[in-house]
Each structure stands twice: as C-alpha cells, then as structure tokens.
C-alpha cells in the first residue's frame, strides 16, 4: 500500500506539480514575456498573453507529415523522448528547491546535467531520421555546437561543487549556500555563472547561437520536417528548458529559486537574443572552446584557491 502511494506521489510530482503541467505553465508565461519584450524592443505590439498556448493548441490539431524516406520509429518517438527528459530534469530541480535538504539523492546534479543534454540529442536523432539534407546540415551544426558548449558548461558547474567541498546533491548545494552565502558573491562564482549563462543561451538554441535552426539560411534546419503535434512537443520541450535551465543555475550558483532571480536571468536571455546577430558555427566553437573554457578553468582554479 505504501509503495503504491509513493509511486502515485512520484507520478503526481512528475506530471502535475512541480513537473510537467506546472513547468509548462511557467514556461509558456516566460515565452510570452520573451515574445512581448522582443516585440516592444523592436517597436512592435507583440502577442496577447495566451499566444504561446494558442500556438501549441493550433499546432496539435494540425496534420503530421512524415517524410517518405524517414525512419518512422525514431522520427516519431524522438520528440517525446526529449520532452520526458526535460520534464524529469525540471522535476528534480524544482523538488530540490521545494523540499530543501530532504529531496533527491547523492549525485543528482550529475543526473540533471545528463538529462539537460537529452532534449538536444533527441532532436538530433529525430531530425537526422527525417532524411532531409537541410535537416542533416542543422544536425551537424547542432552536434558541433553541443561539443562546443558542453565542455565549459560542465567545468563551470564544478565550481560550486569544489566550493562546497564535494556536495553533489542540488538540495545540499542550496542548503550550503543558505549557511555560507551564495556562490555568486565570489569571483569564481561570478565567472562560472557568466560561462553558464552563455552555455544556457546555446542550449536553448537562441540567437546568437541559433545556427542549427537558422531560418534564413537552412529554413529551420533541425525542425524542418517536423509538423503538427510533434512540432508542438518540440516547442514545448524548448519552453520547459527555458524554465529548467535558469532555475538550475539559480539553484546551484545563486542560493535557490526565487521569482526575481528567474526574471533577471530571463531578461539576460532576451536581451542577448535581441542585440546580436547569429554567429557562424566555427565562430561559436572558437568562442566556447577558447574563451568560455579558459574562463571556466580560471574560475575552477580560483575556486580551488578559495576565492
């Protein structure tokens, strides 16, 4: 009996609160804020608040076209695979914030890092299964981009772990910061979060790192063959990542989630995407490997020296 209720509890937290429904709702509001602010910056009016939801509903009642040459099973299942990974990551991160000190398991930071890379991998799989040359070009860009940003991202995440002398649970890191002050009050923490913010932008696939999508070059690239509810699922995954990633960063660098910290990170994302052109993939790789990785390594060294 107890086992059943614990499974029900886990299902509830995965599907409703703080998992799928809750994160998706926040994500939709965030993506509305993104679109509205972008519109205002560009002297446009912008959409009404329910527009992201309306888009999803509209997409989900549209027909799905499966390309003739596609490998069907992978093409159809990849978006769901990515969505569930993103929701699971979001659930872990939220629970660490809600039930401080008593949720998760040792090493869940590593699991979250792993889960956060899965949506991109799922998208690559599904997109390359479509057999479209533009999609394959988008996939090759996404793979290169991923190889570029994962290295500095993971190095920057080690900074809080070093500072807290080896805590690997997200909730422990939050508790540690509550006792000893947030990591961003140190030089190493500031450097690490700057690196992590750039990597977050690339993980979200937003300008200046949207070359895998690049509408004016390769017509949507990795998304090109997706339509109907599958496209809706991909958009929803991106929306959920737009909540999961900033909340993850606030949790491990900035003493846990709060609305204003989330809004600040969101504003940084929006401003970055509105004040830059898209960079070329080779420029992005150079940026992440040379500049960001060195910055992350400096942050790690400073953290080891106690700054």
């Amino acid at each position, binding site marked *: 009996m107890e086992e059943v209720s614990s499974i029900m509890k886990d299902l509830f937290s995965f599907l409703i609160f703080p998992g799928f429904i809750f994160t998706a709702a926040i994500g939709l509001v965030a993506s509305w804020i993104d679109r509205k602010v*972008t519109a205002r*910056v*560009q*002297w*446009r009016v912008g959409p009404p608040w329910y527009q992201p939801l309306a888009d999803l509903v509209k997409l989900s009642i549209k027909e799905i076209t499966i390309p003739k040459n596609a490998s069907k099973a992978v093409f159809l299942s990849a978006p769901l695979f990515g969505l569930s990974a993103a929701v699971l990551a979001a659930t872990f991160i939220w629970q660490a914030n809600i039930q401080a000190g008593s949720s998760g398991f040792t090493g869940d930071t590593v699991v979250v890092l792993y889960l956060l890379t899965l949506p991109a991998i799922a998208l690559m799989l599904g997109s390359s299964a479509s057999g479209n*040359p*533009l999609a394959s*070009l988008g996939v*090759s860009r996404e793979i290169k981009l991923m190889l570029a940003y994962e290295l500095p991202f993971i190095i920057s995440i080690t900074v809080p772990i070093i500072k807290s002398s080896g805590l690997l649970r997200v909730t422990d890191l939050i508790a540690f910061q509550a006792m000893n002050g947030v990591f961003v009050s140190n030089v190493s923490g500031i450097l690490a979060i700057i690196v992590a913010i750039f990597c977050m932008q690339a993980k979200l696939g937003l*300008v*200046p790192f*949207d*070359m895998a999508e*690049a*509408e*004016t*070059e*390769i*017509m949507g690239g990795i998304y090109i063959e997706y339509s109907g509810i599958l496209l809706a699922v991909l958009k929803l995954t991106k929306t959920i990542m737009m909540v999961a990633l900033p909340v993850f960063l606030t949790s491990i660098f900035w003493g846990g989630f709060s609305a204003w910290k989330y809004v600040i990170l969101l504003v940084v994302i929006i401003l970055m995407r*509105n*004040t*830059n*052109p*898209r*960079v*070329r*993939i*080779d*420029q992005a790789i150079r940026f992440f490997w040379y500049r960001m990785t060195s910055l992350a390594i400096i942050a790690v060294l400073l953290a080891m020296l106690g700054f």
Partner: protein
Amino acid sequence: MADKIIPIGPYHPLQEEPEFFRLHVDGEKVVDIDIEIGYNHRAIEKISESKSYDQVTFLVERICGICSTSHPFAYTNAIDDLLGIEVPERALYIRTIIGELERIHSHLLWLGLAGHFLGYNTVWMWAWRYREPVLDIFERISGNRNHYAMFKPGGARRDLDEADFPWIKKTLKSLIPKFDMFKGAVIDDPVIRARTEGVGVLTKQDVYDYACVGPTARASGFVMDVRKDDPYAAYDKVEWKVITQQGGDVFAKAVVRILELYESVNIILQCLDKIPKGPIDINIKDMPAGEGIGRHEAPRGEVFHYIMSDGGNSPARHKVRAPSFVNIASNKKAVIGETISDATIILAAVDPCYCCTERMAVVDHKTGKKVFDGQDLVRLSQEKTEKLRRKYNR
C-alpha cells in the same frame, strides 16, 4: 561527396522573390553555385511597345516596387535624349529630390533585410521604422508611399509645395541621429564585424570582370557613379561626393550604403534650398523618329533604358537593363569557397532585385530541359535587332 546540393529557392525565407541558387556543398563549404532567375517574366519591354509614351512612364514604374522611381527616371532621361529638349530646371530639381529620397528608403530597407538575414531582427525592425518618415515625406509630396508617379517625359507630373519644405527638412534632419546610430551599430559591433568582414570579397578585378555597378562596385574601390560620371537632372548643381570603400566584402558594402544615406540627405537639403521657381513641364506634342538612351544611378547601381521611336505613338523598341542583372552574376565569384551561413548574406549583399532582372527561359515541361539556352536567346535577340534595323533603315 562534393555533389550534395543545398537549394536556396525558388521559395525560401531568405528572399521574398522567386529565385533559385543551387549551392553545391562539401560539408558547410560551398564549392559551386548555379544561379537561376527568370521565374516571373512579365514581358515589360513587349508591353511597352503597345502603350503610349506617357503610359510607359507608369508601366516602368511597376518594374520594381522598391526602386520604383529609378526606371521612370532613366526612361524620361531616354525620352529627353531622344527629343533633344531642355527640361525646365524646376522639374530637374524635383526629379533629383525624388530620386534621392528613394535611395534613402531603399538603403534602409536593405539594411533591415541584411540584419534579418544575419538573424539580427532588432536591426531589421529599427531600420524599417526609420524608413517610415521617408515614406511619409513621399506621401505628403505625391499622395503615394511607394509608386509616386512624379515623372513625365519632358518634366515632372506634380509640383512640390513650398509650404511643405520646412517640414521635409525637419524630418530629414531628424533622421541624421538615427543614421549615426546605425553607423555605430554596424561599424562598432564586434559580432556584426565578425560575420561580415572578409566575407564574400569581390576584388577590383572581379568587379571589372563581372561589370558590377552601384554600391557593389563602389565597395571594391571603384569610383563609379552615373550621377558624377554623366551628370543629369540637378546632380551637377549640388555639392556631394561619391562614397567608396576598399574592402569589397559585405561589411564594405554595408558601410557604403550607410554613408550614402548622409549624402542623399545632403543632396535633398541643397536641392530644397536651390530649387528655382518656374514651369515644371514642357508639353511634348509629338515624338519624332529616332533613338535615345537614359541612365540613372538607382540605389542598386546604373539603370539603363533605350528607346527607339518610329514617329508613332508608342516605342518601337524599349530596352531595359537593371543593375541587379550584372550584380547577381558576381555571386558566382563571391560565394564559392565560403560557408553556407555566409552564402546567404553574400547573396543578399548586392541588394538583389529579381523582378527587374527576369529574363525569359523556355522549358519543356515533360523533360525539364531548357529549349533555349543562353546562346539561343542571344541569337534570337540579335535577329530581332537585325529585323528592326532593316525595318527602320539604320
């Protein structure tokens, strides 16, 4: 491996007109490019032969929506050349003012599109926002925002109202700080420079080989501008300079266009000060037989119109050559060796205008083979010229 093809067109979010660039790629690198235009042939030259000289002014205005004044400008120059008449000075100033206003709005339009192609949508929206005041000026002057219908063989169709001049001057002067902002945003932005500097370089020799015109040529260090080289309208009555850059890359082309915005404002302000009073039109009664050519430096380069008259009511032959026709071909040089990401902005950097440039192609719809190739079309064109020459004893 090298024969993977990435299509840009015939319908593609990059450009709003039907065009087809077949990029042969090796990974991200473009190894060859096929350029196909001619999806929307409208037979303007043939229609022109069935319209009266006055109606043709409106017809050629519709060749292009963006440089809608360039074609009437070149056409009326051709008619004036054919007649050998002196156009009233006030009309010359009016033509110059309209021509330069158009250059401002066309360059701003390009700047916005270039931003969009680079994924920088803020530049796109801002450039188009500051294009609006220019369109407002057009609306005040002519009642229209895009097809102004201000030109007429032998003069101008409408007069400018002196009462509007202070407002026009004020609006234009208010644009200068906005141009400064764009200049800063392009020249000082490290990411834009990284994306455009050294990209799609056309050397001076390439420009010479492909006979490029306009900003495309001036960005490679060619001092070439019909307004200076063969002055017409009021361009020799005002002070201005030809903008050139040495780079030949996308960045240099952007800088040339931005700096030309200042020159255009400068020209218009001088014209508004100097414009004399008087008639705006000599009423042309009849057309003698003969031929005339007219040129105009459109925002994209030199527009060329040739008119042959047999003394009748319509042109016996009307030939149009738009600047994009030569500029688009230069992509063959500029794109090869660059990446796909850069190819899109290089294709856009010549400010292509396909509707001006459409040529006819005859394709067998069953086999997809072209019935006429380029050589055949040249041969047909020569035969037609011979026929005309015999008919009119030239």
